[in-house]
């Protein structure tokens, strides 16, 4: 394992997980604030259990798939996942679609929980637990996918897992101290950076799966990242200028 390969895997998993954990934390915090911490923590715990089971089942299963086929499938999935994020991040940065706001998400979630104030206390607790479960499960699946995808192609599961774990510890520590949505985390910028990195990994693994011998071997990921970053920044500039001209 080389540092040039481990560093992008670790940082991509860290940044992507940071975004996902912040989003899940906002909903769990909303559930805890409105319905109490018991259903919030039970829902979160159950989802983490299911996610751990997924990793335990999928991790070893992936080692049985032929490497080239695995790289191709994971590469295509990463490309679809990464370009989707990047497209949205570019449209947000260019001012074409609204930026994601954790404070707004928190207000919306607490509002929805208060509006569903029907049924017995048990029923409300169950629904609140289910809300926390769904949030952690959905955001967690994205984290699991990213860790497996950036890590499984060339034995980088440990650095990728370490990146994801570091993000979880950071968000939970900040959350425990602040006890409010982590709105100051520059989520839109992070999503842009993650979109660039994941797309670069996607192109690299897809190429490997198709038998491409990249110039510079692992270092090609850095080159692909720079190319995608440059293209994305150029697109943002072009569409932002276009938006200003249209508005004028």
């Amino acid at each position, binding site marked *: 394992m080389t540092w040039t390969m481990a560093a992008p895997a670790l940082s991509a998993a860290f940044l992507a997980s940071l975004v996902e954990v912040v989003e899940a934390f906002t909903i769990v915090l909303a559930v805890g604030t409105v319905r109490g911490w018991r259903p919030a923590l039970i829902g979160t715990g159950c989802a983490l259990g299911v996610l751990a089971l997924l990793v335990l089942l999928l991790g070893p299963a992936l080692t049985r798939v032929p490497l080239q086929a695995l790289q191709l499938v994971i590469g295509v999935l990463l490309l*679809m996942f990464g370009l989707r994020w990047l497209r949205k991040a570019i449209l947000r940065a260019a001012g*074409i679609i609204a930026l994601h706001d954790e404070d707004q998400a928190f207000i919306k979630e607490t509002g929805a929980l208060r509006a569903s104030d029907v049924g017995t206390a048990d029923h409300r607790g169950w629904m609140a637990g289910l809300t926390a479960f769904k949030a952690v499960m959905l955001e967690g699946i994205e984290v699991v996918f990213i860790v497996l995808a950036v890590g499984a192609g060339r034995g980088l599961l440990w650095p990728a897992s370490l990146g994801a774990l570091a993000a979880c510890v950071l968000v939970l520590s900040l959350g425990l101290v602040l006890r409010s949505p982590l709105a100051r985390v520059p989520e839109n910028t992070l999503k842009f950076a993650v979109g660039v990195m994941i797309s670069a990994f996607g192109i690299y693994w897809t190429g490997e799966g198709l038998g491409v011998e990249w110039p510079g071997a692992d270092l090609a990921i850095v080159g692909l990242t720079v190319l995608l970053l440059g293209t994305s920044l150029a697109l943002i500039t072009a569409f932002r200028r276009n938006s200003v001209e249209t508005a004028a």
Partner: protein
Amino acid sequence: MKTIVMILREIAALFVDDERLALAILALVGFCAVLAFGVHGSAIGVGAALTGGSTLVLAFSVQQGAKRKRQP
């Protein structure tokens, strides 16, 4: 059951948000696969087609997204 269906739908949405973007990526990979295995194109050529194609697909998808958002 409703929750499971919802979760499965969300998982699919991880990869397919804009159908045209997803189809364009699959078409690009299909084209590169034909280049690599069908006509046995040079490895560097396949890499260049994949890299250039991906940036073009991204630019086209952003342009389409912007156009759709601006339409009244």
